[in-house]
């Protein structure tokens, strides 16, 4: 049997298309909306003076949509970056707390053990045990 189910899962693990993908989709959406708005205005060309209001309104909507999409995407990216930074900081804090606790307990145990051994005569007085490399 050349492969297992886990191998298949590994081979077919999801791949991220990259950060540009979302930008491309949003850009295509904006283009499509712009095209649709353009088609609408062309159909009213025979009587331009009657169609001016809707054309201007459509143009304003397109501009707002483009601007909104761009701002929205920027804020989405910013949100993602901040979330990542927060996550990283949290992980660092957790690791530090864990390490400090273990260090404190190590030293406590080491010193306690050292004193007890000395008292019980297990260590000659002229033998110094430096802090053990644990």
């Amino acid at each position: 049997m050349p492969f297992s189910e886990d191998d298949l899962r590994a081979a077919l693990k999801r791949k991220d298309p990259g950060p540009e993908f979302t930008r491309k989709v949003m850009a295509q959406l904006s283009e499509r909306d712009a095209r649709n708005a353009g088609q609408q205005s062309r159909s009213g060309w025979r009587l331009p003076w009657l169609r001016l209001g809707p054309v201007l309104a459509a143009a304003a909507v397109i501009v707002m949509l483009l601007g909104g999409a761009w701002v929205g995407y920027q804020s989405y990216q910013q949100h993602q970056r901040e979330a990542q930074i927060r996550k990283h900081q949290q992980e660092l804090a957790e690791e530090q707390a864990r390490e400090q606790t273990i260090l404190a307990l190590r030293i406590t145990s080491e010193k306690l053990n050292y004193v007890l051994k000395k008292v019980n005569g297990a260590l000659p007085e002229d033998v110094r045990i430096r802090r053990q490399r644990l």
Partner: protein
Amino acid sequence: MKNFHMKWIPQVFLAVAMVCMALPGVAQAGKLELKNLDKLAGRASEVNDVTLDGTLLQFAASVMKNSDDPDSAQVVELIKGLKGIYVKNFEFDSPGQYSQADVEAIRSQLTGPGWQRIVTSFSKHNGERDEVYLLKQGDKITGLTVLVAEAKELSVVNIVGTIDPEKLSELGGHFGIPNEVNDHSKPKLVPRNDGGKSKNPKPDK
């Protein structure tokens, strides 16, 4: 009547504020003041300075509780009742880097009510002294201090809170702590019950 109340409000407020400001100065029972040792850091070749107060200990416990590591469960159990762990550990390249006054400033805090010195190792030959103190409230141990004052080392470990020295010894073999602590042939760390005669012993000169 209204004016009478309004006159006294500022004084009452001030009194409450003063009490609140004084509150942080009220020492947590069993916690030693170790700041005087900070100056030794500059002369030491190795320093371990750890301050874990209640909040940080709780945070560490919650982190380790979520860990898959089986050793972490033991640590969580041990630190459950603790309010603080304070470690000052200095190692020097040559003797004479700290004074007896530095040590006495620590030792004098351990002559207070509740502290019992249960272990002393003293060498007349070189003046080195290692001690273990327990703080007891009734039958419960609510504090532990290990003081190691040797030629090239000064270490103070101060633990505040409900501690089970048995559980501390059970940590041996985990997290790099030597397993020899778990050697049950050695006498355990048990405070003497001698009617309080050993309470607040005077330090030897």
